[in-house]
């Protein structure tokens, strides 16, 4: 594709919510001109963007692609196609594969697979401890040499505080940061759902929010004491959000993420043991939903991340306790956030672009992909009047474990462009 002209689309940016319509010309992968009534030569592909939003493409820092080890759930190929389908053009993988990504050799393996199978950049995090066992430190320097920025034992917390403190002291000297899945296992029980009304009703031991909050506070204190940079993953509770707010005010080098499902759903949605609402940390209460949304608007949450966690139908159709934790998110995130929030005036495109495109890239040491002259083409065209039905046919993920399965929501991602390539066009 030599050149592409998007006509009359409203341009979204992280800076403001004035969605001014303009024409955008892309040549050789770069945005060369933004203006009114740009003329196209005959070789230029022209796409009518009137009534649609042209937004920087999203970037998701919390993704499980299950390869290597559990390719029946997802692969880097199917997972990156799912990302494109959801308007996401860069992902950071979590290291809880089998074997875990805890060495330079494993990082190289991931890059090799991505090189072969993925149409978008794939980054990976690396383990803090070998095999995520919480016993010995992983080969940190080797992974950092290959560009790893985020160290995490995601899926579990590092139980040994001295080990975590030493890891932070060691690695804070390098260009990297830690990410914490926060949970005190002794308090968690079977890790199935929130401790509350619904756990009582369903007769399953619940995980109290304090299991997450105590560990979060512990990890931020350790980071603050050692000077390490720390990112808190998938915050699910009001007190968790307030804990982060307090530590930010104290000057701790802490960032935090919230997932669409923790914003949109709560324990009541589990109904009669619906495993599409089972994840860890669990869905909590309506009060927590409101607090998390507030935290997102006020910037307590720096980024949105999905914790895309594919599982096969067979696994999810088990009883509630046996079924694995997690739901997919890559394909539903943008549309569901548009449907529930932007379309209802809860927040504007600038917030979505900031929290789900610009900030995640900055956190990973990458440049944001704003739609400006001279910028790299890395955007989506979104139709707010369109709609999306999340049918198995629509989804590119190998798994279907999402509460949005077969539901129809407002909004549609019509085009995904990265550089010279149209990755998706509907």
């Amino acid at each position, binding site marked *: 594709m030599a050149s592409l002209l998007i006509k009359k689309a409203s341009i979204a940016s992280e800076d403001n919510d004035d969605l001014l319509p303009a024409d955008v010309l892309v040549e050789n992968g770069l945005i060369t001109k933004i203006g009114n009534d740009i003329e196209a030569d005959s070789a230029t592909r022209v796409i009518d963007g009137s009534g649609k939003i042209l937004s920087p493409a999203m970037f998701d820092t919390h993704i499980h692609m299950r390869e290597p080890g559990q390719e029946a759930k997802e692969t880097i190929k199917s997972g990156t196609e799912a990302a494109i389908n959801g308007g996401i053009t860069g992902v950071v993988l979590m290291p809880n594969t089998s074997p875990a990504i805890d060495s330079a050799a494993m990082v190289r393996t991931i890059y090799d697979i991505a090189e072969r199978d993925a149409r978008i950049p794939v980054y990976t995090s690396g383990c803090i401890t070998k095999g995520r066992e919480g016993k010995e430190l992983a080969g940190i320097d080797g992974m950092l040499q290959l560009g790893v920025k985020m160290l995490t034992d995601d899926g579990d917390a590092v139980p040994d505080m001295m080990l975590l403190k030493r890891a932070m002291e060691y690695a804070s000297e390098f260009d990297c940061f830690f990410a914490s899945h926060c949970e005190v296992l002794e308090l968690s029980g079977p890790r199935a759902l929130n*401790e*509350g*009304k619904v*756990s*009582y*009703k*369903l*007769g*399953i*031991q619940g995980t109290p929010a304090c299991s997450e909050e105590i560990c979060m506070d512990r990890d931020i204190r350790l980071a603050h004491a050692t000077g390490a940079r720390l990112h808190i993953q998938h915050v699910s509770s009001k007190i968790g959000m307030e804990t982060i707010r307090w530590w930010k005010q104290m000057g701790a080098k802490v960032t935090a993420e919230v997932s669409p499902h923790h914003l949109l759903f709560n324990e009541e949605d589990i109904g*009669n*043991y619906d495993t599409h609402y089972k994840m860890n940390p669990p869905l909590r209460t309506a009060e927590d939903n409101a607090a998390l949304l507030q935290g997102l608007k006020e910037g307590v949450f720096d980024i949105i991340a999905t914790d895309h966690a594919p599982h096969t139908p*067979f696994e999810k*159709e*088990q*009883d*509630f*306790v*046996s*079924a694995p934790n997690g739901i997919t998110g890559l394909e539903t995130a943008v549309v569901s956030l548009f449907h529930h929030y932007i379309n209802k005036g809860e927040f504007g495109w600038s917030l979505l672009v900031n929290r789900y495109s610009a900030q995640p890239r900055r956190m990973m040491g990458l440049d944001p992909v704003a739609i400006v002259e001279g910028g790299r083409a890395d955007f989506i065209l979104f139709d707010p009047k369109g709609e999306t039905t999340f049918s198995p046919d629509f989804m590119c993920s190998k798994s279907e474990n999402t509460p949005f399965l077969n539901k129809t929501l407002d909004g549609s991602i019509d085009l995904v462009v990265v550089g010279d390539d149209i990755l998706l066009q509907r």
Partner: protein
Amino acid sequence: MTRKDLLDIESLRREEIEHLLDQAAPFKELFTRSVKKVPALKGKSVLTLFYEPSTRTLSSFEVAAKRLSADVTTFDVPHSSVVKGESVRDTIATLQAMRTDYIIVRNQMAGIPLAIARATKASVINAGDGAHSHPTQALLDGFTFKEVFPEPAGKKLLIIGDILHSRVARSTSTLMRKLGVEVAWLGPGSLVPKHGPSEIKRFTNYDEAMKWSPDAVYLLRIQMERQSAPFFPSLREYTKLYGITQERFKRIADQGTYIMHPGPVNRGVELCDDVMQYQRCLIDQQVENGIATRMAVLYWLKPDTAGNESLTDEDTN
């Protein structure tokens, strides 16, 4: 007014509960006759699938099914290993092939009976799943309570013990409240859920609870294995604070309060020996009523297996 499955009390309407309790009465009368059997389920097959060891509930169901002339098969499942949901799913396929009409299931995991019910045409009766539900126990408790209090609305029931792990407490509390009975809980703070229905009164001390003048006290069995995880310091301390000791029994007898217990009892822990001889102790009556109410449940449920013959097309696909 009929259903395929009985999985919990929550989803039953009050009329359905009353209908079932009314149905149980004539079945109970049957027990006084020399021939205790009726041909109501002749030719039907009942399969019991107990993943947790149980003698009392299992035999109660077997007797109930046999008195309705059903054919009863015990599906032998290992109790020792923790049975994962996965293998239960494989078992369901096997059961479906057996063309059984009723499946009575007990499992340590909450929600397994529902998973089975969704996957089979047979009627599924939940005989206890984790800490979730034990609907036939609740029905037999309701039946027993109504025998002594034909107008249960406004009566008071005090449940004492380990509410947290008890499916009996959950189901019986729900059923009694649907009958208009006032329900209160008493037990160690670590064994009483904080998020139960707000309408259930919560007592923290025995004397205060008895001042509420309950019409019946329902004692829950203290699981001895809970001792390994310290929910309370010792059995001795439990008995001292929450047990029906000799001294407390005198007051109970004076007030004429009825005593209930799902069995089996731990003598000397939840209650002292004398309680078992007490005229208003309903424990044996509960056992007998268990058979009658389970007959009523089996008789009431309608499996989708009726007319299996016409399903051959679908089955051969």
